[in-house]
Every structure is written in C-alpha cells, then in structure tokens.
C-alpha cells in the first residue's frame, strides 16, 4: 500500500476514515487513518454533495442531480428544476453510473500494433493524431472525418466543426441507428419545417400510437410516460368518469402497448395504411374539426383509396376496428396520434390526423426556436462511407457511436472504415468500432466532463463534471481544441478548453435583463443545471397539396422480422451496463440475452420449440438466437430486440445474444426472413416462472365503468378475503408507521425503480446463469402477469412494482430464530444483516417472495465498487436481504429532524424507487399522518374505491397499499 499511492487508494482510505467502508462481508475495515493534507473546504467526509448536471444517455436531455460522496458519484436523481424529467429519470439514466465506473473502460491511450494493442502516452497519442491530421489537411480538403452520435450537445458540435475546419474538412457525421429523419421528412412535407413537434398526451382522451413506444425509447420517454399516466388517470370528462383510451399498433405487444387498451397486431409496415384508413373514416364521417382549417376535400381524395375494407384486407386488421378507432379519435375531445418507425408516410398520416381533428396546438404543437437538426441524413452517411472506401479520407475520428455494430449490413461500414489509414476511436468501453481503430483514446465520461444539451426550444441543459476522472482519460472537447490549435490555422479554436467554449456559448443565452451579471447567470445555471426560457408556439399550416408520398403498398411477406430497440439497451449502447442487462424486459421478462419472439402457431409451423436456437436469414445476413414463443406477437412475425450481439464492448456485452442490424436493410426495421430451427437449446434467462396469477389477487385491475359505479372486481379473484380476526391486541406505532401507496394504474413498466434500487442499495447483479437458477437479487421487481383465458374482462397485462410489503403481521418475522427479521418501532420490517444466520426460513414464509439471499459473495469488479453507497451495508454471502424502504434515507431525515428539533416533514423522505418514478406511481409516507400525501392518496376520490393489498386473504397486513390499474372494457371483436 505504501508504494504507488494513487488518488484511487487515497479516496478509498479517506472513505474508510469517513464512514465504515462498504467492504463486502464483515472483514475488518482498513486500520489506517490518513487525513487530508489540505482539505477541500466544500467537502465534509460522510456528507453527500449534490451537483446539477444533465443526462446524456439519450437525446431527451433530462436534467439530473448527482450525489457525490467523498469524491465519488454514487447516485443520479432527476433534477426537479428540469421541465422534461421533472425530477425523475429512467432506468437508462440511473445506469449512467455503470458507464462511469465500467471496469472495461479504456484506461490509457492505446495504439494498434499488429493484432494487439500497445499502451502509449498521451503525448505520443497527440503526436500521432496531429501529425496524421496535418498530413491529411496538406493532401486536400475533406480528408478528415468525424463520426459521432446526434446528441453530443450544441457546444461540442461547434467544437467539432471548428476542429474539422482547422484541418480543411467539413465531414462531421452524426449518426443515429434509430433515426428521427423520417419524422422530420414528414414534418417538412406536411408543414414545410423540419423540426419535431412536442406532444401533450395529458390533454388527450384518445391516443393512437402507430408503433411509437413512447413509454420505452421513443423521443422523451420520461416526459411522455408522465403525460401518459395523467392521460390514464381517472378523471371526469364531459360528465363521465373516464380514463384515456389508447390504441397501440405494432406487430409485438411491448410494454407500451401493454398499458394501452387495445393492441392491434398489424404487420410491420402496415402502420401508414392503417393511419390513413383511420383518417379516411374520420373524413368520410365528417368528424374533421371545423377549426382545423384544412382542405378536407383535397385530403379526402388523398385517402380515398384507404377505405377500411380494403385496408383491412391488406393488413388483416378488422375493418370494424379501424372504424371504431376512427370514431373514437374523431369524436374525442382531444386526441393524439403518434408515429414511430422509418416510414415517413406513417409520421405524415399521424400529423394529419392530429391536425384534422383540431389537435394541432393542443395535443401536438410546434415550437419556435427548436434546436437544428443534428442528425446526419442517411444519404450523407452513405456518401461519407463511400469516400472512406475510395480512400478519400485519411483520418476518421469516431466517438460514442458504433457504426460497425449498428449500421445496416448493406452499407458495409466495417469495410469502409478499414480503408481509412488512421481510425481514431475515443470513448469509454471499446466497442466493435474500437476494435477496428488504430488509435484508441480514453475520453472522459459525460459525468466527468463539461457539456450542454438543447433538447427543445427553451430548454438548455448545462452539464458540469461531477467528479474527478476515474481513469487517465481526457475530455473530448479539450482534445479537439488542442488538436485544432496544433493545425497552425490562426484562431482555429478560439477557446481555452471546452469549459471555456461552453461558457462563451452560454453567455449568448444570457437574457438581456441579466446581461450585466454574466458570472451570476453562469453560477445560477450551474446550480440549476441549465437555463429555462419560455418557448413560443409556432404557427404552422398543413399543406395538403404537398401530401404526395403514398406508402409503398407492399406485399406482406410470409415471415417478416420486426426489430425494435430494446427498452434499456436501445441501439446497443446500454449493453455494457450490467444493471441494464439484468433488469428484465418488462413483457418477456428476459434478461442477459436477445430472443426471437414468435407466435405459437408460427412456431409450430416451422417446428420451433421453446428456447430453441433458430437461424434467421434475410437477404442481408444471418444470425442465430433463441426462440421465445409468445402469443404477444403477430402470427408470421419474428420480433427481435436490437441491442445485443456485441462482439466487443467489455465483459458484460460481449457474446450476449445476436444483433438484428445484421439482417436489416437501410431505413427499415423489418425485413422478410426465413427461419430454421437448429435443434440446439439455449435457455432464455428470466426471473419469472409462471405468467399467470392463477386467480390469486397479486396484481389487480378494474374497469373504469366498475370504478364509476363502485363495483369491486370479483371475477378473477378466487380467494375470499375473510374479515380480519385478531387474537392479540394490535401493535401500536406511536411515532411513525411507514407505508407506501402504489398506483398500479400509473405504472408504465419503465423499470426505473429497479435501476434506482440497484444503485441506492448496493444490490448485486448476478449474471445470466444465476438468473436461470432463480437467484436474481433485485429488491424490487415488476410483477407482470398475462391475462388468463378463462376470464372475460381483463387488461392486456397486469403490472405493478413488487417490493417488500413491510407487513405488520409479517410471516417472515416470527420464524426467524435470531430476530434478524423483526418489526421496527416505526412499522418497518427490519432485516439485520449482521444478525442473520442464513436459515432462509423468512423467505420460505414470505408470500410475496421479495426477500433475496446472497448465494455468493457479491462482486463488483473494480471500479464498479466505487459506486457503492457508503450508507448501506454491503451484504456478504449467506445473508438474507430485502427492501428496507431505503431506511438509510429515513434515518438521515429523522436525525436531521431531531437535530433541528422538529418532526419529520411529509415528503422529506423519498425512497429511491419513489424518487425516480417518472409517473409518481409510488408514494411514501407515514401512515399515522392522515394529511400526508401518501395517506391522502389512498382516500382520494377515484382512489379509495380501487385500493387493495396484495394477497390480502393471508392477512399479513402489508404497509403497501396498491391502487388497481384501470382499463376500458374492449369491444368484443
């Protein structure tokens, strides 16, 4: 320990000195105390600091607050000041931490020599890069290219532009595998502008999504999820208690569809025809809004050929269904159509639907001052690749994107990149593109770096570094600015470093009133995490005459692959984060794998059995993955998530599943395929055994009509709930009695709570093998059940978060021989790890099966262990653990209240799951405090009638009260 005393070990020891270190098990803590030489005045060891910054995992641009302990970021939470996330973030946002601390991150600059990589110094790397750049610039124009993602932020894009310009180039390519170009193309066609509209789902009462998975990956899932929950909340509309009615059109029932009322299993590519058909119904029935001011006659003739009957014939969707959709949509007081996928016609049809029903400016609006289109259009990407192939590019700089993995096979990206004499890859975990690079540069993770975001008009996010870099990396902006200076071009990069560039860009935002106080504006922006200004609604007009692109009327192939972005891995960028790998995909509940979802009838036709590896072949390529047989996919469709199938990207991504990009053509996520069973089996890991709750009341649902008329759902609850009978006097909890109210109706299945719990409570991840063995450790899970055939009225899916219910008659407690499980004086179900002998009786007796046993000594390969929360004990092998309602937060608030000589305030304590829930489905509070938000929620109108407790017949008296999920009764098809 004495030699090579690094900052890393210093931090470790400082943390040990501060609090008891999070050393696994009960090993003695390090026995040295090493004080600071000069303390950082802002740091109090043992007290967290909070920095506002921005999330960069996707383009939605939520603001986050990072919690720092002893110099390490240990948790991200949403920034309440941010209008997009409003204090919440999704699972991907939570998992950002595992990007910072990923053990496979590149640690030093490396240079490829032969087959291997050689560590080089930064000086050598700089020299290598700059010499090549100078040589390229000397050879001519546009011989240097930059390839990155679309959401690196306006300032970085400026720096990239300046850097390229310094070397005589303008080839900046911002590539996104899941492209927004079709939506922009459609907007240009309809409205003559290329920006994207902003939606307000909460202002609608009918929603049709044409393949836009708005609760998972589409646009801004946190914001849209929040709006969707409001849309689905029971409220009186036109004198009648109702919830929003939602249709989802997609070949597969994903978790977004599962939270809708109707899932219409259209073949991939049929979305546009269906949308136009709905439009046809609305127009022909005269439900177009008179306020819409559109050329109805022109539109009518445009959609004339899309009458329900013929579209029904083409797509297999019943004409009645299309008519019903049109009727609901046309008659609704506020409706919204969303479109996903790559067909601009679908997007255009959805826009038109919103316009003709008078919802433009209401549920969908365009704003002035939207950020410019950052994404490079595919033609330009292909052109750049061609240039590479033709040897016209000498230096290619790739960051934060993975063309080799995510570009369609037809573009032959790998081959084109190989033709470039110097490929420089910068980033964290070296991915497939990094495998092809000649020079690999470790770049700062966004949380270690300065950056800004501009997700939409009026919202400017300012990201500051929240901690010292973990590895010997450099910020991309600094690197490019220094490199541009080296070019010798005068004033090539007029900034000192990226912070300076950011600051000077930021000053331009400074509103005139505050212009004098530049420093104050900057500091305030840093504190708030950005700058919010009002945005003006743009006046747009539908140009009916321009509507000419009719969807290519395609023959539906016999068997078609429909790929979709994995809700957590997206286009593959999340695959190196074990939390994201281990959170079950909400519908299939599969982890650590890719799968081909096939309808049982289709599977039977091709002779495919459960978990059998199938070979999927398209005109573009062939992959093998395991089959998941499910009725939640259209017949004749093979549905497959994008995101797995990495051949690099570190230990967690490499070798997991298969990559459907290999099969796809440019500009499409579906393609005709053939499928062959291979007779080999590959078990798809899932923590869920049975998909049906067998008439047990674990997750309950209720129709909105029953709620309105006060009828309790009886049909599928087989057990009678007896009147509670108590032999003994009940325990009293005079101080507090903590409890939770969970609105299952608001749960969108986004799984952010699970990720937050992993991060907050040091919950270990276990990997595929142990998930198969039934040893997943997550303290909170999504209890997901499919409807059962024998009951008539049911929602598409039963879904509710399941965590320790903190029962007051906890079955787990009296069976513990040593009081390791006991009931606290505040009504919590305590689990004392150091007392636990590991008899596992408690878990046997837990009806909810929410206790987790440490089968192994948990492992977090360094530096993943730096993320561990020092306020929570790391449990060693042989110990039972479970949800504690984040007791560390409760204790902290109680101590603070005690010091300040006041009672704990309602809302002062927020467990990690409740904190991050985008829809606020989870609320926490004191059951003694009848005026608390949590208790009021239980008795609120339209809530009280739908409260239930899971498995209530057992009389375990859980402290968690659920509100039933609500659904509309479907028309019988």
């Amino acid at each position, binding site marked *: 320990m004495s030699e*090579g*005393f*690094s*900052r*890393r070990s*210093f931090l470790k020891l400082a943390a040990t*000195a*501060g*609090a*008891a*270190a*999070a*050393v696994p098990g*009960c*090993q*003695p*803590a390090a*026995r*040295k*105390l*090493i*004080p*600071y*030489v*000069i*303390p*950082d005045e802002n740091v*109090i*060891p*043992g*007290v967290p600091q909070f920095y506002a910054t921005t999330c960069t995992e996707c383009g939605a641009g939520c603001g986050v607050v990072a919690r720092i302990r002893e*110099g390490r970021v240990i948790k991200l939470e949403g920034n309440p000041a941010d209008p997009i996330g409003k204090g919440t973030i999704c699972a991907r946002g939570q998992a950002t931490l595992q990007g910072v601390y990923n053990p496979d991150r590149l640690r030093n600059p490396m240079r490829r020599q032969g087959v291997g990589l050689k560590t080089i110094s930064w000086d050598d790397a700089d020299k290598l890069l700059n010499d090549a750049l100078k040589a390229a610039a000397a050879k001519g124009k546009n011989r240097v290219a930059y390839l990155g993602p679309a959401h690196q932020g306006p300032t970085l894009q400026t720096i990239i532009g300046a850097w390229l310009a310094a070397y005589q180039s303008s080839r900046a390519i911002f590539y996104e595998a899941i492209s927004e170009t079709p939506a922009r193309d459609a907007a240009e066609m309809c409205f003559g502008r290329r920006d994207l509209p902003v939606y307000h789902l909460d202002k609608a009462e009918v929603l049709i999504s044409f393949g836009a998975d708005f609760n998972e990956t589409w646009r801004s899932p946190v914001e849209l999820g929040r709006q969707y929950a409001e849309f689905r909340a029971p409220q009186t509309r036109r004198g009648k208690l109702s919830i929003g009615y939602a249709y989802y059109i997609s070949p597969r029932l994903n978790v977004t569809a599962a939270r809708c009322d109707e899932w219409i299993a259209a073949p991939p590519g049929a979305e546009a025809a269906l949308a136009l058909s709905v439009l046809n119904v609305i127009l022909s029935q005269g439900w177009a809004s008179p306020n819409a001011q559109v050329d109805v006659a022109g539109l009518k003739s445009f959609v004339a050929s899309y009458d329900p009957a013929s579209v029904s014939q083409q797509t297999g969707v019943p004409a009645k269904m299309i008519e019903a959709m049109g009727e609901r949509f046309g008659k609704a007081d506020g409706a919204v159509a969303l479109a996903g996928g790559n067909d601009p016609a679908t997007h255009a049809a959805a826009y038109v639907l919103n316009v003709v029903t008078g919802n433009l400016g209401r549920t969908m609006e365009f704003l002035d001052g939207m950020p410019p289109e950052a994404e490079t259009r595919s033609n330009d990407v292909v052109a750049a690749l061609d240039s590479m192939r033709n040897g016209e590019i000498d230096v290619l700089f790739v960051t934060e994107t993975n063309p080799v993995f995510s570009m369609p096979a037809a573009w032959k990206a790998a081959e084109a990149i190989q033709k470039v004499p110097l490929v420089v890859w910068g980033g964290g975990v070296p991915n497939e593109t990094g495998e092809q690079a000649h020079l690999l540069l470790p770049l700062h993770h966004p949380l270690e770096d300065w950056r800004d975001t501009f997700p939409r008009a009026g919202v400017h996010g300012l990201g500051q570094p929240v901690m*010292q*870099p*973990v*590895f*010997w990396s450099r910020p991309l902006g600094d690197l490019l600015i220094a490199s541009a200076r080296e070019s010798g071009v005068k004033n090539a990069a007029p900034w000192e470093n990226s912070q300076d560039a950011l600051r000077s860009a930021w000053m331009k935002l400074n509103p005139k009133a505050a212009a004098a106080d530049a420093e104050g504006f900057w500091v305030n922006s840093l504190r708030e995490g950005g700058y919010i200004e009002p945005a003006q609604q743009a006046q747009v007009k539908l140009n009916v005459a321009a509507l000419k692109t009719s969807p290519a009327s395609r023959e539906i192939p016999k068997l078609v692959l429909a790929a979709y972005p994995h809700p957590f891995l997206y286009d593959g960028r999340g695959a190196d984060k074990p939390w994201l790998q281990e959170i079950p995909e909400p519908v299939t509940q599969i982890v650590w794998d890719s799968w081909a979802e096939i309808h049982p009838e289709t599977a039977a036709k091709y002779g495919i059995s459960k978990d059998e590896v199938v070979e999927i072949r398209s005109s573009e390529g062939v992959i093998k993955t395991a089959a998941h047989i499910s009725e939640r996919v259209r017949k004749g469709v093979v549905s497959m998530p994008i995101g797995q199938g990495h051949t690099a990207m570190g230990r967690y991504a490499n070798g997991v599943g298969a990559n459907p990009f290999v099969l796809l053509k440019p500009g499409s996520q579906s393609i005709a395929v053939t499928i062959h069973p291979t007779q080999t089996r590959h078990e798809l890991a899932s923590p869920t055994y049975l998909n049906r709750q067998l008439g047990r009341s674990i997750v309950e649902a209720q129709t909105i009509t029953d709620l309105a008329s006060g009828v309790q759902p009886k049909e599928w609850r087989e057990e009678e709930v007896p009147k509670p009978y108590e032999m003994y006097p009940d325990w009293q909890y005079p101080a507090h009695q903590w409890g939770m109210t969970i609105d299952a109706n608001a749960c969108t299945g986004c799984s952010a709570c699970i990720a937050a719990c992993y991060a907050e409570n040091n919950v270990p991840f276990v990997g595929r093998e142990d998930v198969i063995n039934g040893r997943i450790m997550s303290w909170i899970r999504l209890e997901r059940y499919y409807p059962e055939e024998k009951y008539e009225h049911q929602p598409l899916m039963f879904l509710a978060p399941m965590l320790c219910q903190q029962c007051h008659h906890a079955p787990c407690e009296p069976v513990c021989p040593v*009081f390791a499980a*006991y009931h*606290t*004086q*505040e009504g*919590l179900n*305590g689990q*004392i*790890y*150091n*007392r636990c002998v590991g008899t596992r009786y408690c878990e046997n007796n837990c009806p909810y099966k929410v206790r987790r046993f440490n089968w192994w000594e948990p492992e977090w390969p360094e530096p993943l262990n730096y993320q561990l929360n020092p*306020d*929570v*004990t*790391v449990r060693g092998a042989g110990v039972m653990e479970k949800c*504690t309602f984040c*007791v*560390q937060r409760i*204790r902290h608030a109680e*101590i603070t209240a*005690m*010091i300040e000589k006041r009672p704990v305030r309602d809302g002062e304590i927020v467990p990690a799951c409740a904190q991050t829930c985008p829809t606020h489905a989870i609320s926490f509070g004191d059951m003694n405090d009848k005026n608390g938000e949590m208790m009021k929620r239980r008795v609120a109108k339209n809530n009280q009638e739908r409260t239930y407790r899971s498995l209530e017949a057992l009389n375990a008296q859980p402290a968690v009260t659920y509100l039933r999920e609500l659904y509309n009764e479907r028309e019988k098809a």
Partner: protein
Amino acid sequence: MNRTILPLAAVLMVAGLVTFGLSQRPWAPRSDVAQPIPFSHRIHAGINKIPCQYCHEYARRSQTSGVPPVQRCVGCHGAALVGGLQPVTRPWMDHTQPPFEIRWNRVYTLPDFVRFTHRPHIAAGLACQTCHGPVQTMDRIEPVHEINMGFCLTCHTQRGVTTDCFACHF
C-alpha cells in the same frame, strides 16, 4: 483416588484456561496502538484546552468526526513544520506521493455493519469523553470503553432513546 482426581483436574484446568483466555477478550480494542508521531492529546486538549471539534471538525455535521488535516497542524505550528504544502486533490493520473501525509493508526474501529454517526450524538450534547474516555489526560490515545453493542445500548436505554436495531444496522 488419584486416578479419579487427576483427569478431573486436567479437565478443570483446560476449562479454566479457556475461560481465562476468553475473559481476556481478545477481540477487544487494543490499547497498545502506537502512532507515527508522538502527538499528545493531553497537551492539546488537556493543557492547552483546545476544543475537540477544533480539530475533529466534522463531528457535528457528519457521520465521521474527521482526523484533522495536516493544514490544521500547520495553522498553529507554522508552515515551517512541513514546508510547501500542496493539495492532494490532484488529478487521478498523478501517481506521485502526496507531499506530507500522516498515517495514523486507528484506535477505534467499528464493524462495517454498524452505521454509527457522530452527528446526532453531538447534537444531543454528549461529551466526547462519554465514549472516548478522558482523552485530555492521555498522551497516546487508548480506548477506555470497549465500543460494542452493549456499550451503546446501556447508554441508549438510560437516556430513553431508540434501541431499534434499524437505528444502526441497515
């Protein structure tokens, strides 16, 4: 007779040795922890009456009381003590030794499953000596009390504050 007594005596002796050995409490904190420099609490806290929290400055705000930074020593003793101090908060890649560090040996340790925090104890007006003994009379810190759960509980019971397991173990 001897043949009966001798084995019995042997058994008793072994039992006695075990009892004695355990009564010596090998797990108790050690009182012979030597420190790298002969710092005296008696001189600082006793004779010069420097308040505890002048040096252990985090105690009222944090879980940890904090070991005083070298800068704090220099503040009184003068910069000549160590010569050009530099901050240790240098970037990660800096593998050089910090200019001056004191590697104290821990006297008080708690297992990592105890979530003890100084803050409420200071706020409750407890003297440091309650747990740490008459530090102001010691040249070298020696543990006076064995800080085990029984020690915590005795005080908590007497003062009528929480004895919930979840107060310290989670």
